[in-house]
């Protein structure tokens, strides 16, 4: 008991922390206007929404349909974590110039130790004023600031734009709802037990919380008390855990950077795993061919005892590289001033692995949900694909996403392996004019020219008013002997881009069966017959 009290005292020395929060960042990054109802959608559910949308009753986690029934004029954007991170880099840079040593918790939230900076700017209030005006001037973004003891309390304070006086974090946190701990399962349970605020939770004896709900809940209990938001076992990592890679040729493209990020993240994760460690803060460091040194720290989820998963490390690295490549190391004309020649991942703080962080496939972010089924050994799959990507480049290995669209080619998007397979807003809508199933098993990448003739051998034509000049009778592919058509249906008009004089195309589609048993999808397009696909 004595030793646990000692640990508690140590943790109680919560560092004065500043939190910089951009409200509804995913919406802002997507280009939504805070004064108009707009929302960002991930996996069919609302991921973030603007204040105006909240007023209309839109909530995080709602289904798209429910949100739109509450607020029909809601503007919806697809969720793009790398865009969020890329644009947030400007804000991070602007804050870092004033207060060194920032940690990004997620795109939209930064925490940083504030004591030194407050002394430098002669007080906490002047520091906050300086930051909010500088960020607004340099980036045009709106930030909300909070100051308190410990990063959890500071984050909560930022949500209320509040300065919590030193030593009063516990008092400030007490009336906050239990769900601000960001542990939905625990919150659910506690609310059913009648514990609704952090104060109620903090009033429970710690030993009982630990015995009944386990170490993570005990840690949450410490947070509710306003103790330092750092897992008790946190320690700085021994230096040999860092992984690094010299890049030759220099990397100046995002897709290549993604690939590098993944390989390095896997390596780091393996190294940590071998020692039974998990990482809760990671520094990403890079050097460009012009000798610029870049570095940025990311903190895991702010308040968690489980470290970064391999996928989460890869994501943070990719976002950061993307941010640098599209901002920091580009001159005004948008060209990179130099590629990255060196990359290093340093686990700044590690904790003993509680056995929760999993390999690339079980994370709750991005790919994770898609890959819940575990057939073959997923690690082996990942290794095999990495080898192939190494051989042919990251773009050569793809999975398909089938979405909306009338034309066969536009229905399918190919996503390079490792990129998130996201649905676009139009994917789940019905598309009038789409072909009925069954879909053709063979889709030609480029339509092939053929000849279709009537029984007397004269060419069949389709008029602008979709009149077919004669029943279709012979199908001739290149110089081969004509095949007899035994069944046909059409024409089904396919007008695309009719609103655009230049891009507008008017085509007529037919399905054919030939005497050899094959089925064909052909189109009549400005006087020519083309095979698009084969039902074979």
């Amino acid at each position, binding site marked *: 008991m004595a030793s646990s009290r000692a640990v508690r005292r140590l943790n109680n020395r919560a560092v004065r922390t500043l939190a910089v929060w951009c409200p509804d960042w995913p919406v802002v990054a997507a280009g939504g206007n805070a004064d108009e109802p707009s929302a960002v959608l991930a996996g069919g559910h609302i991921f973030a929404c603007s204040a105006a949308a909240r007023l209309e009753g839109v909530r995080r986690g709602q289904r798209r349909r429910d949100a739109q029934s509450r607020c029909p004029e809601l503007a919806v954007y697809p969720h793009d974590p790398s865009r969020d991170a890329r644009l947030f880099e400007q804000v991070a840079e602007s804050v870092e110039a004033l207060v060194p040593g920032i940690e990004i918790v997620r795109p939209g939230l930064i925490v940083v130790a504030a004591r030194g900076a407050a002394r430098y700017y002669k007080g906490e209030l002047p520091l906050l004023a300086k930051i909010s005006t500088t960020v607004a001037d340099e980036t045009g973004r709106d930030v909300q600031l909070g100051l308190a003891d410990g990063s959890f309390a500071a984050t909560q304070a930022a949500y209320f734009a509040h300065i919590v006086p030193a030593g009063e974090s516990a008092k400030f946190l007490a009336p906050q709802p239990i769900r601000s701990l960001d542990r939905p399962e625990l919150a659910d349970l506690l609310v059913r037990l009648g514990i609704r605020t952090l104060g109620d939770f903090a009033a429970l004896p710690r030993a009982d919380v630990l015995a009944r709900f386990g170490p993570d809940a005990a840690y949450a209990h410490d947070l509710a008390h306003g103790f330092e938001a750092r897992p008790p076992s946190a320690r700085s990592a021994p230096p040999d855990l860092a992984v690094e890679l010299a890049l030759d040729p220099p990397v100046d493209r995002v897709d290549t950077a993604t690939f590098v990020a993944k390989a390095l993240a896997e390596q780091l994760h393996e190294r940590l795993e071998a020692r039974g460690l998990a990482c809760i803060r990671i520094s990403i460091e890079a050097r460009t061919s012009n000798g610029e040194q870049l570095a940025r720290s990311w903190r895991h989820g702010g308040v968690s005892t489980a470290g970064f998963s391999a996928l989460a490390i890869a994501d943070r690295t990719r976002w950061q590289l993307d941010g640098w490549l599209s901002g920091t190391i580009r001159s005004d004309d948008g060209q990179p001033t130099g590629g990255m020649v060196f990359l290093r991942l340093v686990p700044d703080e590690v904790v003993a692995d509680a056995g929760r962080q999993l390999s690339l496939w079980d994370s709750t972010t991005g790919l994770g949900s898609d890959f819940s089924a575990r057939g073959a050994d997923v690690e082996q799959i990942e290794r095999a694909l990495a080898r192939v990507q190494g051989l*042919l480049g990251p773009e050569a290995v793809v999975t398909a996403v089938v979405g909306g669209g009338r034309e066969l080619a536009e*229905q399918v998007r190919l996503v390079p392996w490792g990129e998130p397979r996201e649905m676009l807003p139009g994917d789940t809508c019905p598309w009038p004019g789409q072909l009925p199933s*069954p879909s053709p098993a063979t889709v030609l990448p480029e339509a092939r020219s053929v000849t279709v003739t009537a029984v007397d051998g004269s060419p069949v034509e389709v008029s602008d008013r979709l009149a077919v000049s004669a*029943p279709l009778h012979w199908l001739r592919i290149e110089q081969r002997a004509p095949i007899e058509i035994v069944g046909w249906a059409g024409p089904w008009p396919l007008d695309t881009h009719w609103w655009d004089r230049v891009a507008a195309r008017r085509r007529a589609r037919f399905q054919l069966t030939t005497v050899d048993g*094959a*089925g064909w999808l052909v189109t009549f397009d400005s006087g020519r017959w083309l095979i698009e696909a084969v039902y074979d």
Partner: protein
Amino acid sequence: MLHSAALSADLLERVGVGVGSFRSDDAVLPVPPALLSLFPGGGLRRGSTITVSRSPSLVLALTAQVSKRPGWCAEVGSPLLGSAAAVEAGIALERFVRVAEPGEQWATVTASLLEAFDLVIVHPPARAGQGDMRRLSARARERSAVLLVAGAWEGAMVGLSITGSKWQGLGAGHGYLRARQVEVQALGRGSAARPQRVKVWLPGIDGAVSLAHENAA
């Protein structure tokens, strides 16, 4: 009919027929029940090589059954397989990885994928040598994967092809393609040396693969 076919597949799987049966729960990958009579081992034996010539839908139907297991499938060397048709067949696209243009590296790529995937479909280029194919087949055996060659290769355990096909649903200027009846022929070595035929709907009105006649095969 369908029930008993599914049952016997299940039974065979549990007994663990085939090579590499050290993983007895898993020695045979499932095939569509309607095609079961073409596979003497009760399904796709792990470690085996089969060929499917001139029928992408048959490739999709076989892949779907492995994908639903749930298994991981990959395709090397052709951009032609329709993704919408793959979804309709029941393939989980997130576990169906495609390398459309491996170029000269097609054999290396296929070999790498055989290391980890349950089923690898390869469209060998016209110039593919016997040596390459034999090496890949050996790799599949070693890794207990199934190599599905889209095309012809006589070294395969079973060769499937479509010997007859008839679409339904189209008239003269009306209707749309709804269902197709095909005759699938299997020609194999060893226990499968005698040609076997079965008439199936590929796809049926409901989109599924099912036997066309009770007394087929």
